[in-house]
């Protein structure tokens, strides 16, 4: 039972344009969401997070949007750069229960120069 879903395994975007990565979840207990970026042969690195009390969080070129009623979050990267080419994982946590993260299956983003 996949509680966190990333339905697009891959995405290609032109350099300079906006990249939008999507994530859906089913567990209404999730109240904290994170995005991680992973390059080949490296561990994931934290990118940005959002609490369920917010609907938007920005950090430079990265913005995460949360729609609780739709159980959907998205990561916007603008403008996209070649160094953004990586696999992106969304993750969710129910902080009242424990510190476990449930990860999605990942989206491979390719930025075309």
């Amino acid at each position, binding site marked *: 039972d996949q509680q966190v879903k*990333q339905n697009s*395994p891959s995405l290609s975007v032109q350099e300079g344009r906006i990249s939008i990565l999507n994530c859906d979840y089913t567990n209404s207990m999730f109240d*904290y969401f*994170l995005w*991680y970026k992973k390059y080949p*042969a*490296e*561990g*994931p*690195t*934290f990118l940005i*997070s959002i609490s369920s009390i917010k609907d938007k969080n920005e950090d430079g070129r990265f913005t995460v949007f949360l729609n609780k009623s739709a159980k959907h979050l998205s990561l916007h990267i603008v403008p996209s750069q070649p160094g953004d080419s990586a696999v992106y*994982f969304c*993750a969710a*946590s129910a*902080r009242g229960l*424990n*510190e*476990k*993260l449930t*990860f*999605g*299956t*990942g989206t491979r983003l390719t930025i075309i120069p």
Partner: protein
Amino acid sequence: DVKVTQSSRYLVKRTGEKVFLECVQDMDHENMFWYRQDPGLGLRLIYFSYDVKMKEKGDIPEGYSVSREKKERFSLILESASTNQTSMYLCASSFEVQQYFGPGTRLTVT
């Protein structure tokens, strides 16, 4: 900066061998985690630990065990390696929700 290190980047083992994967973190984090990453399946939690000598099963614990004798060290053990355990293994530590990952160990079982 948080540093999580894993004992090997690449490992090749034979079927039936006992395999030890070591993970060390330097930030005095209470929580440590072992995942495996496979194409199309994302990161799946094998085991985690909230304290020394404490462990809990994750989503796919079968065929694995763990040991946490010291706060900074969390070991993953494959008692008898099988070819379906060929994967990328990732260790992480955390204080609160955000987890910090090591570089991963690419394990191949032949």
